[in-house]
Every structure is written in structure tokens, then in C-alpha cells.
């Protein structure tokens, strides 16, 4: 049996290598910083024959997702990637992918939204797509990006719902780190070829996405809502089987650190949640029983797993890298409060917004913020 290979790669490279390992068939792509290096790398792999796929250069993100939808409806395994305003430009077609029950997998490299322009990470772009009917992972390391793209294809194709794999621009996408690449035969065992139950086929003409009357439309929407919730056990199963095959584990719906006896729990996603592990160590050295709960799955929101994981009477410090406009604070805090309401009345939730537009979030700063929140 072949051993895993360790290479140095950026988060963007990790994504491209996962796309190659997943034996993707079609990749429509349009560049946008900081995502561009993914699409460039995949285009190069197609050009030099490393990846036997069709690369479709398009004139914008709306078309990129439209091409992804069409290719997926024709039965292909499809990948694309975007960031920030590119993702917003796709918004309408995101609904077509989910409503059409097409298992497209897309990386969104998180970047703050125009206006004014920024190039650096926050999470307004992905969280603004909450209601598009996509499953969303948020990753906190290069390795997790690689692992999650493979898990995402598996979940998407099991339940016919598109999956967005999010990670921070620059802090992950342009960060060079060691990357463990499992042998291809192991990945093939984890992710068998895509065999859709249905596909558009000129030899067997059928129509797709007709106008429906309300009696037909409503059950489709109910089914989508139910099936998104039903993705939770599939996400867990994919993480567990990926671990059984490769030995690698990033958490399933959630990831935790020093949580068991924690009185103060940091709650955040993406690269800041990795850095927070160091903040937790600092707080523990100061005598504060701190821990971390990172929702790896943002949508469906893993409410049950969070409810079960939080220690009794914990103070939860939600660190949001986004704004929940119209409410004070951020989106994750709102999601968490909604999940806990009436279920865990012992929990206190506090919230701060930070790191907007890529403002650096060093471990000491976040430890200080958490300590200050304890006194609020």
C-alpha cells in the first residue's frame, strides 16, 4: 500500500490538488482575487493532461455558475471557485443549482464585499448566501481545505445538493504549509465515480425546471428544506469514513479544543478559529478555563451538536468576522442564539465583530478581547 505524500502548498494549491484527486469532469472558471490561483492551477492541470476535465473559460461568475449547472445536469462532476463579489454575482444561479438538486461543489475564498473595495478576508460573502439552499463548510487550515473538498463531493452527490467550501483569502489561500496527500487509490475508495440517477441526455430527451403550479412547487421546496437538514448525518459519516481511510480528521459538523471543562467558550469559523487555539492556551495559562467550539459546518447549522457539546453554564464568546446588518453584532451570534433558545437557558452568549476586511487577528489580541468580554 502506498504511503501519503507530504508537499508544501498554499490553500489555493490544496484546493486545486483536491479537484484533481476528485477526478472532476468539468470546471467553468472566471478569475477574481484571491481565488484566481485555484482556477489557474486547475486550468494548468487540464492543459498539461494531469486532469482529464473540460475547462470552460467564461466572461463572468453568473455564466460560470450557469455552465456549472448545465454540466452538472448533464451528469458531470463539476467544480468552480469564486470570491466576494464574484459569489454575489452568482447569487441567482446558486438558487438554480440547489433548486435543480445539482451536486456542484464550489470553493468560495472569503473576501470582504464591495463597497469600498477590499481584497482581504471577512465572511460577509459566504454568509450572505445563507438562504440559497447550499450546504456550507468553513475551513480553518490548508489541509482541511483539501480534505473537505473530497468530503463535499461525496455529500453533494449522496443528497443532490450543491456544497460551498469556504476558506479565508490570503490567510489560507496564499499561506504555504505542509500538505498531506493520501494515495489516489485511497481517495478513489472514498469518492467513487459520480453516477447520477438522472441526467440531461440528447438521446433520451426530457425537460428540466419547467414552470410549476403551486401544488408542485411547494413540495419541491419542502423537500429541499428537509434534505438540507438530512445532510448532517451524511457530513458526519463522510468525515468519519475519510478518517478511517486517510487517518485525517478536522472535526465533523463541529471541531472543538479544550472544551470539556471550559467555562468560557470562543465560537468562530475559518482561519481565526485556528489562531484561537493559541488564544485559548494563553487564557488557560492565565487561569481562565477557556475552550473553543468551531462550527465546521455553517449550513445546515449544527444546532444539536452545539447544544450537546457546550459545557454547563458556559459563557460563549462569539467572534464574528461579518455584520448582521439590522441587528447589533454578527451573523454567527444570531444563529447560535436561535439554536440555543429554549434549549440551553444556562448558556450566556456574548458577541463582538472583528477582523473585517482582513484586519489581522493575532492570538494575543483575541485572548484580550475574550477577557474583556468576560467583564461585560
Amino acid at each position, binding site marked *: 500500500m502506498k504511503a501519503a505524500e507530504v508537499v508544501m502548498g498554499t490553500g489555493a494549491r490544496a484546493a486545486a490538488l483536491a479537484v484533481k484527486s476528485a477526478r472532476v469532469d468539468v470546471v467553468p472558471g472566471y478569475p477574481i482575487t484571491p481565488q484566481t490561483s485555484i482556477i489557474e492551477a486547475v486550468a494548468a492541470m487540464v492543459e498539461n493532461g494531469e486532469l482529464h476535465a473540460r475547462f470552460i473559460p467564461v466572461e463572468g461568475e453568473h455564466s460560470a455558475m450557469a455552465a456549472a449547472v448545465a454540466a452538472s445536469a448533464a451528469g458531470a462532476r463539476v467544480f468552480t471557485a469564486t470570491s466576494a463579489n464574484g459569489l454575489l454575482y452568482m447569487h441567482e444561479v446558486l438558487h438554480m443549482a440547489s433548486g435543480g438538486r445539482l451536486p456542484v461543489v464550489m470553493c468560495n475564498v472569503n473576501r470582504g464585499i464591495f463597497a469600498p473595495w477590499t481584497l482581504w478576508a471577512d465572511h460577509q460573502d459566504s454568509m450572505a448566501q445563507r438562504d440559497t439552499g447550499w450546504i456550507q463548510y468553513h475551513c480553518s487550515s490548508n489541509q482541511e481545505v483539501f480534505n473537505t473538498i473530497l468530503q463535499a463531493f461525496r455529500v453533494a452527490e449522496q443528497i443532490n445538493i450543491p456544497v460551498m467550501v469556504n476558506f479565508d483569502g490570503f490567510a489560507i489561500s*496564499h499561506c*504555504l504549509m505542509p500538505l498531506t496527500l493520501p494515495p489516489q487509490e485511497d481517495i478513489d475508495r472514498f469518492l467513487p465515480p459520480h453516477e447520477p440517477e438522472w441526467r440531461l441526455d440528447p438521446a433520451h430527451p426530457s425537460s428540466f425546471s419547467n414552470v410549476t403550479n403551486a401544488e408542485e412547487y411547494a413540495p419541491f421546496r419542502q423537500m429541499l428544506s428537509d434534505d438540507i437538514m438530512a445532510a448532517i448525518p451524511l457530513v458526519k459519516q463522510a468525515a468519519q469514513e475519510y478518517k478511517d481511510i486517510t487517518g485525517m480528521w478536522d472535526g465533523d459538523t463541529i471541531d472543538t479544543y479544550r472544551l470539556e471543562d471550559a467555562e468560557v467558550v470562543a465560537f468562530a469559523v475559518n482561519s481565526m478559529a485556528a489562531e484561537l487555539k493559541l488564544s485559548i492556551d494563553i487564557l488557560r495559562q492565565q487561569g481562565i478555563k477557556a475552550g473553543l467550539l468551531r462550527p465546521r459546518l455553517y449550513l445546515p447549522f449544527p444546532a444539536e451538536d452545539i447544544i450537546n457539546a457546550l459545557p454547563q453554564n458556559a459563557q460563549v464568546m462569539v467572534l464574528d468576522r461579518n455584520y448582521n446588518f439590522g441587528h447589533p453584532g454578527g451573523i454567527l451570534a444570531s444563529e447560535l442564539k436561535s439554536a440555543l433558545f429554549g434549549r440551553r437557558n444556562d448558556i450566556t452568549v456574548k458577541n463582538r465583530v472583528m477582523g473585517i476586511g482582513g484586519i489581522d487577528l493575532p492570538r494575543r489580541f483575541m485572548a484580550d478581547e475574550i477577557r474583556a468580554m468576560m467583564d461585560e
Partner: protein
Amino acid sequence: MLELRINGFGGQGSVTLAHLLAQAALENGEQGQALPFFGVERRGAPVRAAVRMSSTTIHAHSQCELPDYVVVMSEKLTEAALSEGINEIGTVIINAPHAVPVKKHPTWQVDADTIAREAGLFSADGPFINIPLFGAVCRVLNIPQNVMEQTILNKWPGNGERNLDAAGKAYNTVKQINI
């Protein structure tokens, strides 16, 4: 975990230097991370990059606030680089043709410009100082010379001779300045 920050000017090859150092860490049996800060990418504008090395998984994804080492790619940047923060017992490595005194911090000096030019590593834009600086930083971090050389050979297979020459010369001539 060892933390290092590179302060340079756009066009001096800070990103490649950061990548080489992270790769050298892996070659040396450790974990390595290179996290350049990409700003408005203009030639001549001040740039910085974070590098980390550790025997265990690196979770940090911020720029280095208080690094253990600061690499100053041009002596003109010395004051600005230190003002961005350094561990109170941190070490400074400066590219300069002569000794640059830095208060309170152990300081190393290497003449990367001259070494690069003498090795034939230059273009119309100037010398490729990141290669000799890579050699110098490896020496200061006690990374074995053969690990440094292997990292260069991995990066430029079959085309590393002048790079090896320049990095090796810097490895052996970088010197600590007496305070």
C-alpha cells in the same frame, strides 16, 4: 514555535524568501509556514511576510506581531521594521554592506547585494538578494547547510548552481555584530 518576519521592498523577492524558509523547515523535519502579506503589489513599496517553524502543527494564521527574528532586506527599512514589533529578546538580520547598530537586539549582518552580484544573480532591476539572505537566515537559525542546499535544489532542479554559490557564501559570511 519560531516566528520570523521579513521586511522588504516590493521586487526584492520577499515572498520567495519566505517560501524557501518554510520549505527548508520541512526539509529539516519540521513544520513550516510562509504567510506573505499581499498588499497593493507595487515595486518599491514596503512589503512583509511571516514565516513560522515548529515541531508540531502550526495553527497561527496571523502576521507575526512579536517575531523572534526580523529579516531586514534593506538597511533603510531597519527602523520601520523594528517599529512593527519584535520579541524583546528577538534577533535582527540586516542586509547591509557594513555593520548597522541596533539597540537591545542581537544583530547579524550580511552583504547580500554584493554576494548576489558576484554570483551573477542580478537583472536590470538589481541583484536577487533573497538567495543570499536565505543562506544567511539558515545559518542564523542553525539550519544545516546541506538542508539549505537541498531546499534550493528542490526549488530549482538542475539549475541551482549560482543560487547555491550565493546562498553558501552568505551562509559562511553572515556575521554577528558586537554591541
